[in-house]
């Protein structure tokens, strides 16, 4: 049962993905009621988008570690819940060595339980926000409209959690995809796809999405040429160095001038990938069988060919030339420019929010300059906030921002904070329900 609208609330989340769940959970943990929270978005579940992408990628475990899950505080961790659920010390042993990665089915099960227990759906207005208007009278607040410009609600504080922009294609592939015959053979790692046994595929990129695709192609019995523009990156467990997940690292990062921050982001986010034992085995086996090879170069031309595609690859240092392949998979992710997200583009246009190279120049509290005030916050989370929180688009980063945003709102509204026994009870009850639900699903094998 969704929320009726127009709806007045203390805090609203624009977007109904993971970010909304974490803001909602944190708000409930601190003491806000569902009546005071509104979530705007058409999807009936916060996990839909992620689940689809994970399925398309063939992803089975998260890259994140045990703290990255959907309860507001850091106890219990997911490994502790998992260990309790399966009555096995295995997850705890792994987590002491930081080798525990929650399985995708397990973490999505938890998200569902948390969402149901805390009444996420009761807060959701099933409409996409098309415009946000700043109003100052009788007190600073925002008025929200849908994409048909209908009034859908008001809120004192707003969190923008619109998610990723559209999928990104290298220019040559974007051009080739205009031809329907070629388009069906050029896919994105995040799209639904199927590989044919014995087929030959080029996979662009060497980040986690691309490596997943190498493994998927090798699994089906096909061959893969891993093509990168630069020599392949070092393996790295997490997206950014560990201490950057915490305030100490974020303090140092935010203190850098804008240009240095952007340069730093470019360096740490250049498609790193975690080292996974099972991936390494598959790739080594593929190499031995002559079904896997890596090359440095770029695609210069794509035409229809006897195998499906006739592709010219401009190698760096070595001549690669024309290749006949079954298909190309681009692991090039999403377009990171905020201008590709309609609502943000309108806000940037109208309110003159500063944007540099497609990134919002946010305040150090992830607030939107000009529109954000301490007594009426307009904050951003996710990829659009990674100029302030470098891992802003991970569960840990979303949690980091949610905690601070909701705490700001609690202070602005003089919220009576939930008592310790009540918080403990909330954690134990939800943790118990999650543990019970995990027993009903098979354990996802760990890869690290």
């Amino acid at each position, binding site marked *: 049962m969704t929320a009726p609208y127009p709806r007045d609330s203390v805090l609203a989340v624009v977007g109904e993905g993971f970010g909304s769940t974490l803001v909602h959970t944190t708000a409930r943990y601190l003491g806000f009621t569902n009546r005071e929270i509104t979530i705007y978005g058409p999807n009936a579940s916060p996990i839909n988008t992620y689940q689809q992408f994970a399925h398309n990628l063939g992803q089975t475990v998260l890259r994140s570690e045990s703290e990255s899950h959907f309860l507001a505080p850091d106890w219990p961790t997911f490994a502790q819940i998992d260990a309790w659920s399966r009555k096995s010390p295995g997850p705890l042993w792994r987590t002491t060595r930081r080798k525990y990665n929650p399985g995708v089915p397990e973490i999505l099960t938890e998200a569902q339980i948390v969402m149901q227990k805390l009444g996420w759906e009761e807060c959701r207005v099933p409409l996409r926000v098309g415009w946000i208007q700043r109003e100052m009278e009788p007190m600073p607040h925002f008025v929200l409209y849908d994409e048909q410009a209908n009034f859908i609600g008001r809120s004192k504080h707003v969190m923008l959690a619109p998610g990723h922009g559209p999928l990104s294609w290298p220019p040559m592939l974007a051009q080739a995809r205009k031809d329907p015959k070629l388009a069906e053979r050029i896919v994105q790692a995040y799209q639904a796809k199927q590989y044919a046994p014995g087929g030959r595929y080029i996979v662009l990129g060497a980040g986690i999405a691309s490596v997943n695709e190498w493994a998927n192609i090798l699994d089906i019995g096909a061959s893969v040429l891993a093509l990168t523009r630069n020599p392949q990156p070092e393996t790295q467990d997490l997206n950014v160095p560990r201490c950057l997940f915490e305030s100490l690292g974020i303090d140092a990062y935010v203190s850098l001038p804008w240009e240095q921050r952007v340069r730093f982001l470019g360096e740490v986010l250049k498609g790193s990938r975690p080292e996974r034992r099972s991936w390494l085995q598959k790739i080594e086996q593929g190499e031995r069988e002559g079904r896997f090879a890596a090359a440095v170069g770029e695609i210069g031309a794509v035409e229809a060919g006897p195998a499906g595609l006739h592709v010219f690859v401009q190698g760096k240092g070595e001549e690669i030339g024309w290749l006949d392949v079954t298909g190309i998979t681009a692991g090039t992710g999403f377009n990171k420019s905020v201008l590709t997200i309609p609502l943000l583009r309108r806000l940037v246009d109208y309110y003159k929010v500063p944007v540099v190279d497609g990134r919002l120049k946010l305040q150090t509290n992830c607030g939107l300059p000009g529109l954000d005030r301490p007594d009426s916050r307009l904050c951003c989370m996710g990829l659009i906030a990674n100029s302030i929180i470098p891992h802003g688009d991970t569960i840990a980063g979303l949690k980091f921002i949610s905690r601070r945003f909701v705490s700001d709102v609690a202070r602005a509204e003089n919220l009576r904070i939930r008592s310790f026994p009540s918080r403990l009870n909330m*954690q134990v009850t939800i943790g118990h329900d999650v543990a019970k639900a995990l027993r009903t699903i098979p354990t996802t094998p760990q890869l690290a």
Partner: protein
Amino acid sequence: MCPTSLGRVQTRWAIIIIPAIIAAVVSLITHNAGWIVLIGIYFVLGVLLDTLFYRFVIRWQPPWLTFALTVGEFVLVYILAHWLKVGLTNVEAIVEFWAAWIIAIWTKVAILPLLSLSWIENAGEFRQTGWAVAPQYVPLAVTVFQQTDPSGAPRLVREFSSVGTLPKELRDLPSPSAVRINPFKN
């Protein structure tokens, strides 16, 4: 976790409170100050290690290292307790140390995260859950709203309003358009 020296000391202080209270009660009951003295030695030694040693050798501390450090601290506390002659038997000192550690680690793992949402993210420091660098708020670049008059709409707007009755003298006034006026007609 990447604890700072301050974070280590604050955390150590917070997790040793319950064992210290229990040890104090036991000391009072048994009339043996050794129980509370041992906790005091553990605390002082820990603070010295936190401020003078760990900060230089450990940046990121995985959970397994926490246990390894505790084993090292146990050996040092054991030696110091013997040297200072705290008045406990070996068995009593060992049991007290590990019982205190179990209570402390439970406090650290389960209680502190519930008390402070950002304690782990803040490197073990007890800070307000807030942003590291205070934001500089800026005024809105465009004027999207007008200052409203507390008395409502301007007087003239109220006078022009069609809500009220139109005065008679306004009904037959000529049109401002000059299109129909013949300029040659005087």
